[in-house]
């Protein structure tokens, strides 16, 4: 009776299903975001007050909101906002974190000292509160939100990169490379960087999911994107007032966020399984 289940589990164990699903979903989301204007059944910002609060039906698959806008179209349009934001945040943070982490780890000394203390301070603070404080300070809006989250997020990459760089700095083959007469820059680029990058890729893909959640949370609190932007967090916030009357307004954007975050989480999880040897099962032969 359990045979099919067992075979399925066996299949799960052998293939990196999570990674496969992650990649598929991610590509799907990216396609949706790129071709959003062609996929949207209606104009996402067009109001049709006579069509407001229509429950999901065949005409409006996910229903309409309080201003008669088609929710599905808005969600599709919103994927661009979320994805772009996450890509920017991760890209900028990785760049800053990687650069500073490499410098700090490879050269050490006072730079390392100062940088790591800054990292300590920034990490001594729950990300969301810091982003929250910062984004209110520098004003609301999506760009400010990106800046605010980048301010904290780079520390994660800096710390990981530095750790790896410190470890590699003392490795014998780096010493060898030095004695041959390679410059510091070429050692960093040719030896240290390739060793760090796989860890950074795992971290970055996991972070994409987290950042989509952060942005949505902050927008939900009214600190990120603002209406009428079809950002998912904003849509949930708008729908919150109608949960009794028209629950679908708040429900579907949440699922969109979750699917997006799930895609990147699975991608990161799968990549970790594949790239991080620590997690692999090893067979003791000796």
């Amino acid at each position: 009776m359990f045979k099919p289940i067992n075979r399925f589990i066996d299949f799960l164990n052998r293939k990196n299903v999570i990674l496969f699903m992650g990649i598929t979903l991610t590509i799907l989301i990216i396609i949706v975001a790129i071709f959003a204007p062609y996929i949207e059944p209606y104009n996402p910002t067009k109001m049709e007050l006579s069509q407001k609060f229509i429950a999901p039906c065949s005409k409006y698959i996910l229903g309409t909101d309080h201003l008669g806008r088609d929710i599905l179209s808005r969600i599709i349009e919103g994927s661009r906002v979320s994805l772009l934001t996450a890509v920017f945040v991760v890209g900028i943070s990785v760049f800053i974190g990687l650069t500073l982490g490499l410098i700090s780890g490879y050269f050490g000394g006072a730079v390392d000292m100062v940088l790591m203390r800054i990292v300590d301070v920034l990490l001594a603070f729950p990300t969301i509160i810091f982003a929250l404080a910062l984004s209110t300070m520098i004003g609301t809006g999506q760009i400010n939100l990106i800046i605010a989250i980048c301010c904290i997020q780079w520390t994660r990459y800096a710390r990981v990169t530095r750790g790896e760089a410190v470890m590699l700095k003392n490795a014998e083959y780096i010493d060898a490379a030095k004695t041959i007469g390679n410059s510091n820059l070429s050692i960093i680029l040719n030896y240290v960087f390739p060793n760090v990058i796989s860890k950074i890729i795992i971290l970055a893909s996991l972070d994409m999911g987290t950042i989509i959640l952060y942005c949505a949370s902050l927008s939900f609190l009214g600190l990120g994107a603002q209406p009428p932007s079809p950002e998912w967090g904003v849509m949930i916030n708008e729908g919150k007032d109608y949960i009794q009357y028209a629950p679908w307004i708040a429900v579907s954007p949440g699922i969109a966020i979750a699917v997006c975050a799930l895609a990147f989480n699975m991608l990161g999880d799968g990549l970790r399984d594949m790239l991080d040897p620590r997690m692999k099962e090893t067979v003791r032969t000796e």
Partner: protein
Amino acid sequence: MENLLEVKNLNVSFLMGKRKIHILKDVSFNIEKNEVLAVIGETGCGKSVTGSAILHLLPENAEVGGSIKYNGIDITNIHENEFRPYRGTEIAAVPQSPSTSLDPLMKVGKQVSECVTDKKYKYGEHKKQLKESIINIFSKLKLPRINEIYDDYPCELSGGMNQRILISMGIVTKPKLLIVDEPTKAIDWALRKEVIEVFQDLKKERRCAMLFITHDIAAAKCVADRIAVMYCGQIVEIGYTNDVLNNPKHPYTKGLIASMPSRGFHVMEGYMPSFADLPIGCRFEPRCSEKTDNCSKYEPQMINIKNGYVKCFRFKL
């Protein structure tokens, strides 16, 4: 003499994904009571897997074939619950790599006494007596500060000291068979002699049989009654210590002995083949200096000699 352990045609393979990788092939040997059998060979040839297989401690994805008989009872496929009483009490193990084989968060004394207290039904010793007997063992192993060491964590002791703690864990239950895995690997040269002496004493005083896994031929020579030479998951030659060392029959044994520093340090050419990609014929064929045409086509058969066997086409009785 009666056989304490009889291993016949032991086959071990690991399931890696959908592929099956054969590690041990038709390994057969026996150990008599109070006899020390040394297994020598290169790193990665399957020595430790043999030990683990006897202890039923192979990873989950392992498949075991053939038969292992202990005291005449077939223990190859008996259930974990039935086998557990054998471990520690009948068959004990002294693991390799002292740095990782001790629980870092438990005091060493407790780790040693644990071997006994978990089987109180058998050893009705009181805590105090137990501690005394452990300290007694410590002192026999020439550990310093024996009373304090009992309450130390492994990280507070040196590698050699930890190795001796591991040995004491193996012998505290007075087992009939001791599987010793690379006892001299982590020990510096000065201590090596002492550790070897400990095993010699063990054999004399406690009268326990041993499966002495090592790549240290000199150590094997001092301790073992017989030597089994293992290559790539197979025993290629087994026989009395003196016979094997002084009159090696298998080309691999010859090479191994020649590579000993005392014998001139002539290192063999080539590497052991990967288990995933084994040659069809004799596994040693690619490196063998005395190979014939048959060697690459057929597997050599076991040829019995006095108290052992050889697997080689070149060997003639």
